[in-house]
């Protein structure tokens, strides 16, 4: 029984409703990919550094990497865990990247009280009319000026348009708006690029109220399809490949292998 949705769940449904069904209804087992586990560890490391600027970032990475691997069924393929650990060390040792991380200043919540804390990993809940469950998510960080932001790790640089078209931004802005948190209608993608010379990108965009209504329409339609148990295959999706879909072998793959 589905008791909530999340941005990533909706995103998966939009990529392939059948993959969504297999993951969330049939609960078929999924394997974690190395980039996913790397992203998760890196993300935790950066958040920890922002919350505790006095800590040494490589020592944080030394804790975050094994913690991210714990309990995960990672499909390493030709990669090794050491290779990815060293990749983290390489990026976090880069002075330019480290300088950028230290410039990230989170908003402070409950200032002057015992519970004063940086706005990191803030849980948000969005409600959409006609959608029977809440959409739950966590904002990586809310910056000093009130801009919500999300950390990403990527093999290549993001284009400005790629960042501006992310539905995720709208989801967080809408959730904050519903929670009566003042929003400045901006969203920032903070991207760590794993190129030969590691890079940090800060891509910030301003959004309009009309975009939130578009997001709601998307979510309404996804929910409607879920309620009607309509889970068409989406072979044209980038996800429909043995490299990106855990269910490929049981789905399209069984026809292709004959």
């Amino acid at each position, binding site marked *: 029984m589905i008791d909530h949705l999340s941005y990533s769940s909706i995103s998966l449904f939009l990529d392939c409703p059948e993959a969504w069904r297999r993951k969330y209804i049939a609960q078929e087992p999924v394997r974690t990919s190395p980039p996913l586990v790397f992203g998760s560890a890196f993300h935790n490391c950066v958040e920890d550094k922002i919350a505790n600027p006095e800590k040494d970032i490589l020592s944080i990475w030394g804790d975050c990497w094994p913690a991210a691997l714990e309990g995960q069924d990672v499909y390493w393929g030709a990669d090794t865990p050491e290779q990815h650990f060293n990749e983290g060390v390489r990026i976090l040792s880069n002075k330019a990247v480290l300088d950028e991380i230290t410039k990230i200043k989170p908003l402070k919540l409950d200032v002057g009280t015992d519970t004063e804390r940086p706005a990191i990993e803030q849980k948000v809940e969005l409600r959409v*009319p006609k959608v029977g469950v809440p959409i739950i998510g966590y904002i990586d960080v809310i910056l000093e000026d009130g801009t919500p932001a999300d950390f990403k790790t990527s093999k290549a640089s993001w284009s400005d348009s790629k960042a501006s078209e992310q539905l995720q931004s709208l989801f967080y802005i809408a959730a904050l708006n519903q929670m*009566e948190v003042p929003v400045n209608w901006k969203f920032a993608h903070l991207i760590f690029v794993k190129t030969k010379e590691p890079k940090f990108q800060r891509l910030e965009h301003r959004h*309009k*109220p009309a975009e939130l209504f578009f997001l709601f*329409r998307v979510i309404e339609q996804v929910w409607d399809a879920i309620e009607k148990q*309509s889970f068409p295959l989406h072979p044209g999706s980038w996800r429909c490949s043995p490299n990106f879909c855990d269910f490929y072998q049981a789905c399209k793959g069984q026809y292709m292998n004959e």
Partner: protein
Amino acid sequence: MTESTSIVTTRNKELTPSVWDMLKEIAPVMHVSRLFGVSSPEQATAIMLKGYELGLGVTSSFEFIHVIEGKPSLSPRGALALIQSQGLLDGFKVTDLRDEKGNYIGAQCYMKRGDTEYTAQFTLEDAKRANLTEGSPTSSGKRGYGNWEKYPERMCTWRAIGFAADVVCPDITGGLTTYLKMPEAFDTVTVDAEGNFEKVVSAPVAAIPEFVTPPSLTDLLDKYKPEQIMEANGGKIPATIEEVNAVAAKLGA
């Protein structure tokens, strides 16, 4: 409707010894396979026989005919499948019923076949009155978590469809075949002691109170700017149907 009602049926089948032998041969397989939810080969035979008389296929019979209180009965979904497969309806509409605040209260089904038209309603109130919402008692004595709690909207819809089908197409559904239990309790039709309809009322549609479907967020967007909608909701994007309705009322939609 979202459910598939596309099945192929053949009417007026006679029961011949060869058909009877075939059903008896298939029944143990259906029972042993555990795929069709029957408790005995005899139950499987009865379901297939009922389905055969109605013109359903063997496996469709298990989908559309359920044993209720010891009798094989056609489900409302099966009734609609049979009716639709024969293309007999000149009009068919299912509408959600909502109160003035936009809260769901039940379903309404309109069917028209030639000169006979009928609109049946089934509300959550009706379901409560018929003790349908309590679930079934379990071995622990607690009430089970039934479909009426999980899918009240869908259940009301099918009840309304079943009632309308029983009135408009009793010949197709085989008479009192839908397992609606006591339709007379809801003042829709009069049923005699044998369970046959004494009187089928062709209710004038005008007599049915008109329910206005509340506007959706998309409807509001057709008339107002996003900023206006949010302003009417205290600066927030509406989160619930109630908030959408309140915004509509405030803006005069």
